[in-house]
């Protein structure tokens, strides 16, 4: 059986931007053809039936792009299945238009050994929705003391390492981790935070933390570690990827380092280019994440960093928490918000507002993540059919009760947005279709 995605604008920077039909066969992109193309085998057949055994997906007005990849996601399994499971997390990913996600190692037990890695990969395969690429821990138990068995985890399938949620505080250990990973050719994702400067704070340090009486986290808590790890990247020659960049100082440091040719990349999350600390509603813990929502100037710097290319990619930092962690005093609440099902819509706002071109957006949500992980998601004949069909004009109101994620901790409830995923395909199989009721029920 063939699938023909018909009438879409196919956008795969820098190879392609054209109206094409994509024909999918046996999990692969079988052919990329002009919309008028008729398979010679069926040319004499009745127009209505001449392509038997082909499921047509009407994609008029939609944009077909390489499968989006979210490289920063917390799936919580094993250990915290009450917040999210690999299954609900991957369903959320599919609904958000992501054909693949990278899951962070701060599970329980920590993904600091090949057994946990294998478990995650095995569960991902059984579930058969979006692909899951585990990220292993840099240090055993995320304790920042001794290196984890990174090679062993790499054999089992990790694509990168990080101690996300925590920094590697010891600079010498970080240096050795970078050297070690360089030798293994595995990317290192950095959670940049000086915890002594953050000093137990819960929101951005500034007039609003003073107003609410909430202990603040200064910008420097992030940028000081960004600057340190730029120095360590220069020292070791190892590439470094910075997670969830939120401050103007970090953007500037990365900009300058890139000019010098330091091998660094970075991501930001939709909340950092959408919200600011002023938006934090009265002690609403759905606005609490780490790093915190920053000032207006920081948001502007993040948007500029995205549009000029200093910020390479967008990742959601999807961090599901239950009401047990969130329906409590602000300073006691867990950090983090869910993001898989709002990321694309919020990112599309950058396009609608003229801050990014659609091509740049696809670069940041599909191509750059793939480059970083060494995945080929080009829309080319013979490649596996991991595709996202975007409806750029669909207006809707974000409704957490419709989330596939097990958790609802989002500050975006009730926000009016424009554009989202219409269809998500992995390995030639439709894993999500927005208006496909039957299909949704099976997910």
């Amino acid at each position: 059986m063939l699938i023909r995605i018909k009438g879409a604008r196919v956008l795969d920077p820098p190879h392609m931007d054209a109206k094409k039909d994509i024909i999918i066969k046996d999990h692969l992109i079988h052919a990329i053809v002009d919309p008028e193309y008729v398979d010679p085998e069926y040319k004499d057949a009745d127009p209505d039936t001449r392509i038997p055994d082909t499921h047509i997906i009407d994609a008029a007005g939609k944009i077909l792009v390489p499968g989006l990849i979210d490289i920063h996601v917390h799936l919580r399994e094993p250990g915290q299945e009450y917040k999210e499971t690999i299954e609900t997390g991957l369903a959320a990913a599919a609904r958000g238009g992501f054909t693949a996600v990278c899951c962070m190692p701060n599970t329980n037990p920590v993904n600091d050994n090949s057994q946990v890695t294998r478990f995650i990969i095995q569960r991902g395969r059984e579930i058969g929705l979006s692909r899951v690429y585990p990220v292993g821990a840099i240090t055993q138990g995320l304790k920042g003391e001794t290196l984890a068995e990174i090679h062993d985890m790499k054999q089992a399938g990790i694509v990168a390492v990080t101690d996300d949620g925590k920094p590697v505080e010891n600079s010498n250990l970080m240096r050795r981790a970078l050297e070690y990973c360089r030798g293994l050719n595995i990317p290192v994702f950095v959670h940049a935070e000086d915890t002594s400067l953050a000093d137990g704070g819960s929101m951005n340090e500034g007039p609003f933390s003073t107003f609410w009486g909430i202990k603040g986290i200064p910008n420097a808590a992030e940028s000081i570690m960004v600057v340190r790890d730029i120095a360590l990247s220069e020292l070791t020659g190892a590439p470094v990827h910075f997670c969830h960049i939120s401050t103007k100082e970090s953007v500037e440091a990365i900009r300058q380092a890139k000019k010098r040719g330091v091998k660094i990349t970075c991501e930001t999350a939709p909340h950092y280019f959408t919200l600011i600390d002023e938006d934090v509603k009265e002690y609403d813990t759905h606005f609490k994440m780490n790093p915190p929502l920053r000032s207006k100037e920081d948001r502007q710097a993040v948007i500029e960093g995205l549009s000029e290319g200093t910020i390479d990619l967008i990742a959601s930092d999807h961090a599901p928490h239950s009401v047990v962690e969130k329906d409590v005093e602000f300073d006691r609440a867990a950090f983090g918000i869910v993001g898989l099902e709002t990321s694309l819509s919020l990112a599309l706002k950058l396009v609608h507002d003229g801050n990014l071109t659609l091509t740049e957006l696809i670069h940041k949500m599909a191509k750059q993540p793939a480059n970083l992980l060494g995945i080929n998601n080009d829309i080319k004949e013979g490649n596996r059919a991991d595709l996202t069909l975007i409806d750029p004009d669909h207006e809707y109101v974000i409704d957490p009760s419709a989330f596939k994620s097990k958790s609802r901790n989002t500050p975006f409830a009730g926000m009016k947005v424009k554009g989202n995923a219409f269809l998500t395909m992995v390995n030639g199989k439709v894993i999500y279709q927005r208006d496909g009721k039957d299909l949704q029920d099976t997910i």
Partner: protein
Amino acid sequence: MRFEKKDILDIESLEPWEISMILDTAQGMKEISERPVKKVPTLRGKTIVLFFQEPSTRTKLSFDTAAKRLSADTHSISAGTSSIVKGETLIDTAKNLEAMKPDVIVLRHPSSGAPHLIAKRVKASVINAGDGIHAHPSQALLDMMSVREKKGRIAGLKISIIGDISHSRVARSDITGFSKMGAMVSICAPRTMIPKGIEKLGCTVSPNMEACIEGSDVVMMLRIQKERQGSILFPTEREYSTLFGLNRDRLKLAQKDVLVMHPGPMNRGVEISSDVADSDCSIILEQVTNGVALRMALFYLVAGGSRHADSH
């Protein structure tokens, strides 16, 4: 105008006319405490829960006394005795309290915003008796009452607040309240104890203590917490006292009829010298007396006054 507020959570959420109404009501309540029989039946049959998740002597006693003088029944729960130590969440504890039908819950809590969190979940009125480093509205209101009583007004006065502003909910509420009522507030502290953007609450930051006190009508000293000595905020009490302690000489820079205030408990010889604390310009003990009247007014306004007039 009628007082319609269900809760007293912070000064920010009170309009100037509401603050005036509270102060007027408190002034009227004050006389009750001077009577031989210090009790009126105003809140008979009302239940007030004092839910203190942080140590407190004077504030708790002040609320308790205020409630009893209005004939309300009071119940006390403190950190050690509440189910919070058994792992119950604040919201669950509050809902359980609610199930016993109290009329007012007075909450003190180490987390900023805790009273706001429970106020949304319970029908009872919630009075914030101090939340984290955020607000202490009853203290600021009694401070305003004390100043107004002595000076006849608040508008146009120069108020100086000196001490650990960063960690002080009293400072935040006083700055907000006095500036809302038209006073000029100036603050002073080691730079380590002045939080970012404090000016936006309605004050100016003075470069040193002398500049801060000069021409002041009111000098309010904040307690410097002994446990912060030797931390990274200031080196020693001795050095702190040299730079930011209130003594006779410094007080001469203020207006002749200056009022000296302190929310207590004082560290004599650290932020305030004994002779100043005991001098004629000190109204520190009158603040305590007014505290009872002010809290009686709050109870009356949220639980017994006009807010409930139509529902009976």
